[in-house]
């Protein structure tokens, strides 16, 4: 039992890891992929110029306990997305 949202992308409600063409890593709850935009909620971002070890540590923590919702709503141009996958499967 629960409240579901029909008509959304298959990843709606799922926490995803998004890597962009500029090297940023976003983790947030996918709301939808529509109109050329990937919409995330309660997301946080790791900068594109971070070192591999910093990125690995950030991702390890995100996988274990999640991320702080520093960005309540984010829209990323679909064209800027290099990869999109479930955080739990990363």
């Amino acid at each position, binding site marked *: 039992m*629960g*409240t579901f949202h029909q008509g959304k992308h298959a990843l709606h*409600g*799922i926490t995803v890891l998004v890597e962009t063409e500029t090297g940023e890593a976003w983790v947030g*709850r996918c709301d939808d992929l529509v109109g050329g935009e990937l919409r995330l909620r309660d997301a946080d971002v790791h900068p594109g110029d971070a070192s591999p070890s910093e990125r690995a540590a950030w991702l390890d923590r995100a996988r274990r*306990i999640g991320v702080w919702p520093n960005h309540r709503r984010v829209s990323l141009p679909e064209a800027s997305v290099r990869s999109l996958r*479930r955080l739990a499967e990363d």
Partner: protein
Amino acid sequence: MPYSPLLVRPMREELVAAGFEELTTPDDVDRFLGQPRGTALLVVNSVCGCAAGMARPGVRLALESGPRPDRLGTVFAGQDLEATARARSHFADIPPSSPSMALFKEGSLVWFLPRHRIEGRDALDVAADLRDAFAEHCATAPVG
């Protein structure tokens, strides 16, 4: 805007029927988590069907047999706002998510299951994670 209490009631009752105490005020939370002895499972309940729809059945399955926490409590995110905030203050280093589950032993957090490790899984998988945590941290016999 919070969902209608009428809509939420069955989601509350699903955990109450499994033996959970509803913690609807900060005082409820402090009393529940303030006990220094034994183990306590706190479930942050949620309306969202994407994850909570499997969280609650997973919890119920996990409690059917084997080791289990001495105390069971739940707050409802988006509904009991002050109680949820107080509950989260007991694990303030962990980002907020709902549904989520926290297991305490002797008053300290020993295990946490965030929302993203519930989403997209079925109740059996969630129950398996809980049973592993109960086996590691919970005595078979409840503390009196």
